């Protein structure tokens, strides 16, 4: 005989009977059990090097020992191959927008952010992958893929060991990078040419 899953078993379908002295007491519908755990995160060797360099207005990447691809931020590994990347590369603070998004909703806790704002995938000159940044100093309607940008840093006396040192990325006015060479397009084309596999 099949069991109808929509029907409660007898043991659960009866009315709950409370002792007399609890009659009329409001039933518990839910409980709150707050969980608070504290962690001391450590950035690890690769990220520590990256963050330390920020205090000197430097952006560090790491080079893959497999094919020389440059990753920023560095994570100590070429994630395609699981290969350790001990070699740092100093990168310039210039690059281009590899992709972007205009956001018209505020972020809780970021009252300093004017709406709308532009999040962009910034591809530094000499790096093979992009990383996240804020684009400002230009009307949002004019931001485009391939647009050349440069980092706008905090004043020297406010620099810390943090990626927050870069306030945002501003257009340089140089000619755009063609779209088919912007973002990861150029990298993927290079890999396809090298391995004959990927498009």
């Amino acid at each position, binding site marked *: 005989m099949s069991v109808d899953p929509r029907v409660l078993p007898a043991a659960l379908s009866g009315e709950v009977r409370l002792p007399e002295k609890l009659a009329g007491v409001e039933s518990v519908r839910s*409980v709150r*059990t707050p969980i608070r755990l504290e962690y001391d*995160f450590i*950035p690890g*060797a*690769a990220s520590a090097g990256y963050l330390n360099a920020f205090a000197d207005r430097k952006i560090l990447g790491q080079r893959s020992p497999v094919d020389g691809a440059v990753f920023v931020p560095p994570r*100590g*590994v070429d*994630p*395609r191959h699981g290969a350790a990347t001990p070699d740092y590369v100093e990168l310039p603070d210039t690059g281009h927008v590899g992709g972007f998004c205009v956001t018209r909703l505020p972020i809780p806790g970021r009252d300093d952010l004017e709406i709308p704002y532009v999040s962009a995938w910034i591809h530094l000159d000499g790096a093979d992958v992009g990383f996240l940044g804020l684009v400002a100093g230009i009307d949002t309607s004019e931001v485009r893929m391939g647009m050349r940008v440069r980092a706008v840093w905090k004043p020297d006396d406010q620099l810390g060991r943090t990626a927050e040192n870069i306030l945002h990325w501003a257009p340089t006015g140089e000619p755009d990078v063609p779209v088919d060479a912007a973002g990861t397009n150029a990298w993927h084309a290079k890999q396809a040419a090298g391995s004959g596999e990927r498009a």
Partner: protein
Amino acid sequence: MRDVAVVSVAQRQTKALTDTTEVELMVPIINEARGAVGLTQDDIGFTCSGSSDFLAGQAFSFVHTLDAVGAVPPISESHVEMDGAWALYEAWVKLQMGGVDTALVYSYGKSSPGSLKDVLCTQLDPYYLGPLWPDAFAMAALQARIMLESGAVSEQRLAEIAVRSLNGAVGNPLAVRSSAAATIDSVLAEAPVADPLRPSDCAASADGGVAVVLAAGDRARELCERPAWITGIDHRIDPHQPGVRDLTRAPSAHKAAAEAGVGADRLDAAELAAPFTTQEHILEVELGLGPQTAVNAAGGALAGHTMMAAGLMRIATAARHIHEGRADRVLGHGASGLFLQQNLVCVMEGE
């Protein structure tokens, strides 16, 4: 059933990894395990890992750790939020299903960024036990008290187990606690951390990682001179609610051992992943280990316990006994949950 063996292992364990991320920890370990048998990720049919986001304090931290494997071109992969011993079980099942001949299994734990004895409270039910935040040592001490008062074990016996670990761990590079000078008297003289448990009754907490390569049939024979063939593997679980359990026993360990065929033949060595001497004693009884079996000869989990990896490390250590010809039939054990709630037993044999 297909013949499946552990053909390569690599592991690292230390007191606290204070300048290394989980990814940076696992890159050399995974490469060592694969490299020792001449494999790259392209040669691996299935990859499975075990870890806990609660240790890392980061959601989906295990996805991040895939960077250490190399997932280009895309790989067939799975993860269990359990000790790596269960990741090995999943990989073993996958190999039994056929279609793949090799598997990479890895596991890691870095509890040093948080407070492990508090993090472990998150495995309790959220209504009755969880809100009380009983720390892990206090809970284990409750069990120890019941065992001592009921005569299930003596303080002398617990001290013997502690001394076996402390003395055996001397010279073991994976151990984080060892002492050539420790004696039963010196252990009994220690002040309790959670009465009646003394410091040497509680496993030395560690950070670390382990990687294991499994292979089936002839592939295993090609890759390894003396594969550690898995002849029995089983895992069982007891109820989550500790109130309904006899805390002096671990029926799930007994059942898993029976299903894995532990008692079918002489066992040369057993590697048990118990985080307390009380629980190591329970396991010895439930698994029916006799004097012919060397238990945790190099210190075992008491000498260094990496949460989420301790079980896979025990299996890896047991497999090495076979690889290096020190033993012909061994047992690796993994445990999970409160009071040894869940147990996995893996029996391996050499040819």
